[in-house]
């Protein structure tokens, strides 16, 4: 056991954050890279760094990847310091930003960077920043979700700032291109690679930090997610085994969905296994199983107890999410839920669930019912995103036989010279997760 592990989680996290802020505010390197596992307080760090840089009088630009992330950051900044003038640079589309921003007196919104000149903090998406021209670069930048930003996206904005703090989660989905980019594989500046890999390939001496504690994942999930997806950079949960609990007012009716809900409430994980079968992507049985689990979760009067509040909070529809691999699967689940009268539950793909947090998640396993295991379905980040959105429990719905499928389809992606091999590969990570889930298996024939 290392010395760090002796400290309690809070101390370890504080020490990491202090070191990051020291390097950011007082370091000499042009960049600082922070790796953050799921729910490790990445947004909190970004907000804190932004406030400290603003306090120090250094003009700051913040680059996020989506408009939702930008609006979220603006709201968090305003919550922490309502006095701080913040610029929200947005596109000229209709509904370019969240209308709740209109209620914040110190947030100035514009589609032109010139209107926001001189504000201590200006926030926008990478796509919008790419259109900004400036004679005098910002002294500081924060690049959020840097592992989901493509190298060519960074190329377009890097001229706007002198130094930057890059924050992101290396375990989530890699950025992708809709056309082939093999011809640049192995080049340090491969435009389809992640911004951080290009940055570090050209600047290997930049200080790199890691947030060591996940505040989101419960004690039941952190070890599995850490082992399966971050084997060389382990992290732990900020809460202990007894700190969170999930209980239900209505007892189980003995059906598959109820039994798997009880298993997940007890252990943090549940696998509802349907009989092995090759199915279309929108497997009607699996989709119905997902929907009935969600319906029962809401019907049984769930209550979540956590370190946030002493009294149990009711498990409402907004605290539950369904995750899938494909958009048509999400649409099918939404339709099935609507038939059962459930409309408030978030149903989305892994890509869109990145950065979100719920009490309970129900996921349709990416390999369920498939006859083959393609690189898309094996991608480590996809499973990692799906398995790390929850504060209490995660229920996986899957056809039997995925382990056999994995054994029949070892990874056969061509090896490209000069590209960093990512560990673990999807094959290994999938096996690790399935081995753990097998202990929480509930078989069910719908």
């Amino acid at each position, binding site marked *: 056991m290392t010395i760090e592990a002796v400290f309690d989680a809070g101390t370890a996290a504080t020490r990491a954050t202090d070191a990051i802020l020291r390097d950011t505010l007082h370091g000499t390197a042009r960049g600082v890279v922070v790796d953050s596992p799921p729910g490790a307080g990445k947004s909190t760090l970004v907000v804190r760094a932004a406030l400290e840089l603003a306090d120090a009088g250094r003009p700051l630009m913040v680059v996020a990847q989506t408009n939702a992330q930008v609006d979220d950051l603006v709201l968090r900044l305003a919550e922490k310091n309502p006095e701080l003038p913040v610029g929200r640079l947005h596109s000229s589309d209709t509904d370019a930003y969240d209308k709740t921003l209109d209620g914040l007196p110190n947030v100035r919104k514009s589609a032109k960077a010139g209107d926001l000149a001189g504000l201590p903090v200006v926030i926008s998406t990478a796509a919008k920043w790419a259109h900004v021209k400036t004679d005098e670069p910002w002294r500081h930048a924060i690049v959020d979700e840097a592992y989901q930003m493509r190298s060519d996206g960074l*190329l*377009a904005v890097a001229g706007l700032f002198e130094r930057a703090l890059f924050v992101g989660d290396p375990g989530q989905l890699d950025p992708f291109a*809709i056309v082939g980019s093999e011809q640049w594989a192995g*080049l340090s500046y491969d435009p*389809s690679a992640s911004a951080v890999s290009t940055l570090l390939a*050209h600047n290997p001496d930049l200080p790199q930090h890691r947030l060591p504690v996940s505040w989101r994942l419960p004690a039941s999930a952190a070890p599995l997610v850490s082992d399966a997806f971050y084997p060389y950079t382990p992290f732990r949960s900020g809460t202990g085994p007894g700190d969170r609990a999930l209980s239900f007012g209505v007892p189980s009716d003995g059906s598959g969905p109820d039994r798997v809900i009880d298993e997940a409430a007890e252990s943090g994980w549940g696998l509802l296994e349907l009989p092995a079968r090759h199915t279309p992507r929108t497997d009607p049985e699996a989709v119905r199983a997902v929907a009935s689990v969600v319906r029962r979760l809401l019907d049984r009067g769930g209550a979540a107890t956590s370190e946030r509040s002493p009294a149990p909070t009711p498990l409402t529809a907004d605290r539950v999410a369904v995750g899938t691999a494909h958009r048509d699967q999400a649409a099918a689940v939404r339709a099935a839920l609507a038939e059962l009268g459930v409309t408030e539950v978030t149903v989305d793909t892994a890509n869109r669930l990145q950065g979100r947090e719920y009490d309970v998640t129900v996921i349709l396993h990416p390999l369920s019912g498939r006859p083959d295991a393609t690189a898309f379905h094996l991608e480590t980040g996809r499973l990692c995103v799906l398995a790390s959105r929850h504060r209490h429990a995660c229920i996986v719905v899957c056809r039997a036989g995925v382990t056999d499928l994995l054994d029949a389809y070892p990874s056969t992606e061509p090896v490209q010279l000069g590209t960093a091999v990512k560990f673990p590969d999807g094959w290994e990570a999938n096996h690790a997760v399935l081995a753990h889930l097998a202990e929480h298996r509930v078989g069910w024939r719908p």
Partner: protein
Amino acid sequence: MSLIATLARLEAVSTGRARPTATVRHRHLSERPLVFVPLTTAGEAGAPLGALVGSDRDAPRLLVVAQPRDRDLRFAFLAELADIVLPYIDSYADAVEAAERSETDPETGKRVKVEVELCSDAPQLIVPSRAGVEYVRLLGRSMRFRRTAEQDPQTPYPAPPRVPLLGRWLTHFGERSRVPGSSLLLALTEVLGRHWATGQSSLEDQHLGALLAWIAPPGGDGGAEAALRAELARDDKGQLLCPPAGPATDPAFDNKLLAPAIERYDRARTALAAAEDGLQADDRLGELTAAERAIHELVLSRTLPTWEKVWQGLDLLRELPEGAHVEERWTRDRWSFTGHRDRVVAGEPPQPRRDDAVTAANKLATREREQGRLDAQEALDDPLVMAGRRLAGEAFAGEVVDVVMTYSEGKRPSPRPLVTVRTDDRTHLGERARVFRSLGGKPQAAEFVRRADPDGAGGEDGPEDESLLVLRIVDKMGRGKEPEEGSVPEKGDRVCFTLFEHEQRGGAKLPDPEDTPWTHGGPPGEPVPETADSVTEEDTL
């Protein structure tokens, strides 16, 4: 694979004939394409064995390397190829039309229109298969850094003149073929596969003979049997009746026919070199010529069937009318051709071995934009492609059942008509989702308002898959208070809206290469002219 493509393949299996997946031709076909059927030698990358090439269907030129490992013979082959391909390319370089292009004025930094030349047509290279495209790229790479005796008299093994130039053009064709929707260099199997779905896998579709067997089975056969015969049937000497379209050859051909013929040629050459007098030399020259002719016959016998199939495939494609946007995409190919012509004329060096950071990012951005444009244009040009998008929930078509005029709020109210569309398509429309329809070639946008509660029609008692969608038209209705005539659909009109945009937005401008930021290694420095490929042991086997 999309659902409609899967259905088409299933239908092809059950009917024994390929099913059309397009009603128009989505790629430009030149009046006078240059067809290139190359063969390569097993065991050495980029060692051509021969080729049939030409733009006249009835008069292909046969080029053969009798001993593929002999560098002099290889250069002679490449020089001959250059003598065919370069005049073909040049024949398009001189006919130009005036065009305008936006350029940044170096003094004011403003975007200004400049009068430039645009070639009025461009050359088109057709190879049989995807592997042929790769081979064109490989030949281009192996030639463009060669130095001729004129450029560099000191270096041993100079390339014949024009070979490096051919390398630059083949590189350009190969690079352009990576742009979605481009037609400067086409692989016939890919183009056929875009327009027909067969009852075999897409991997099997790369066999030109098998693919054509599904699309146009000879006699009254089913596609599956004809394709199987094309793949496997052999004559009594064990040779494939339908030789693979190359560039790789069948191992049975290599072992049983080609290797003995090349050995015979080698023996004849050695014997000729050892001839002691003129008479003996004459005899042995006769034997060498005969050996050479035998290899020519062999190469012809493996390329001619493919040559004919390529033209047969082109005939099939020409029967389809050209899609409406094909011309526009071909214009971009013409720009690409003109651009490279200008670079060659200006004496610029060959394309670098590796792209720099900015060039790579620009290329990726262009290709992604072109892919988006191609997907949208193919759907707009072709109801069958649109049907696939509708089936995937990315578009919907239906009848307008109601139009209610409303106006936007504000000082100058603009028309915002509410249009109710009855559709059988199942679409997943989010709140205020934007949808688009084509109005006189331009996209008109609308917002999804709600699903209507139908009175009488549809509803609880109506057909299950039918729904009424209320849309609010938001643009392309003119500046006045009343919409321009024809800009708002009327009751009874058939309309088709897509969830995807019809036009691609231009991406942000990337920095110039000399302004490459520190995150990407900083400026690459003064461009150093790329040195010629150094001579290696393999060059002088």
